[in-house]
């Protein structure tokens, strides 16, 4: 699997024409405040926002409320959106702030829940192990891993989203990946081989 294949698989990364179309949708929504434009925006971005909120929080209970709160803040703040980043990045920033506030208001109990992403119907044990391993990371590191490896944000974007340096983002990512690999090995009960046969063909 080449890097290009990975990038093109990210269906929610806008191409040039996509970005222009989104700009005119935003213009129309700001002018008309119509429900249909809002629903297009909602449907386009909510999958990403919900995933980030759910995994950043590590529990399902508040995720829907925070998704709702994210959109309310977004619509209120949209006139002030300077479009210096993509809408996707801007919305994710709002979602993360909602998560951080929720975490401060109600810190999780001493131990992380065993199955943090309760809503996920795992298609395989390995996927459940992966979700669990990611969920066991400390929040900051977890967010860097989610934003970079799952959702495809760049270190520059992550730096703005989390208010950290790019260098910090890179080192957090490296540590997060190492930690996840260790947890996966521990979950398997034995070290994973360094060459996995199915990957060797990629």
């Amino acid at each position, binding site marked *: *699997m080449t890097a290009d294949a*990975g990038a093109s*698989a*990210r269906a929610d990364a806008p191409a040039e024409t996509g970005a222009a179309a989104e700009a005119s949708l935003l213009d129309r929504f700001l002018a*008309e*405040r*119509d*429900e*249909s434009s*809002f*629903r*297009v925006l*909602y*449907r386009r971005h*909510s*999958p*990403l*926002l*919900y*995933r980030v909120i*759910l*995994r950043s929080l590590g529990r399902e209970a508040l*995720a*829907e409320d925070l*998704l*709702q709160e994210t*959109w*309310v803040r977004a*619509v*209120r703040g949209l006139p002030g959106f300077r479009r210096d980043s993509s809408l996707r990045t801007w919305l994710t920033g709002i979602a993360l702030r909602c998560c951080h506030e929720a975490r401060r208001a109600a810190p999780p109990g001493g131990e992380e829940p065993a199955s943090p*992403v309760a*809503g*996920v*119907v795992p298609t395989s044990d*390995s*996927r459940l192990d*992966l*979700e669990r391993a*990611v969920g066991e990371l400390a929040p900051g590191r977890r967010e860097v*891993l989610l934003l970079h*490896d*799952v*959702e*495809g944000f760049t270190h520059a974007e992550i730096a703005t989203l989390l208010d950290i340096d790019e260098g910090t983002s890179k080192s957090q990512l*490296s540590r997060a*990946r*190492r930690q*996840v*690999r260790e947890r996966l090995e521990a979950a398997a009960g034995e070290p994973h081989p*360094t060459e*996995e046969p199915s*990957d060797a063909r*990629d």
Partner: protein
Amino acid sequence: MPETDHDAADERLARRLRILADGPAPPASVEGRVVAELRSRGLLRHGASWRRRLLAAAAALALFAGGWVAGRGSADLSPPTPPAATYALFLLGGVESGPDEAERVEEYRGWAIGLARRGRLVAGEKLGTAAWLLAGTTGGTTLRTAPAAHRAAPLSGFFLLTADDPEEALAIARSCPHLRHGGEVLLRPIEPT
């Protein structure tokens, strides 16, 4: 572990993590709640949603009897994200029922499903034979029932469509099977309020 082994292992992990982007999806019910909250805060333009307007128009027109569009509520035929323009297509002139009625219904249904797959169908109904036509007079109302009501207003069905522009709506209307069975169709835009 040498650095290169770490990098290779990291790359493999990153590929696995990418797959987590396929879900979970937000529950469908959240969308409606968000819209309702935005409206209650004055952040969305006030007024009946397009969906309610269309359903109200449909209810005002017809007694629902059977239906051409099978499986409404299935994922394949759920209403599309509403674009700017919506149209009502009325099928005028009854089509004589006969031995090939079932085949004709299938033809209409196939056409409707084709539209649904292209995200153009909102609703479609075949009208039943019962009809009540009321008119106001100085003495009260007069009521004509079928078949007099049918002769006065021979509607056999309707569709609610979405289209990017009037040209597309007309093209859809032209393709309606009703025209091939001796009927007429009437296309009207639905006015956004």
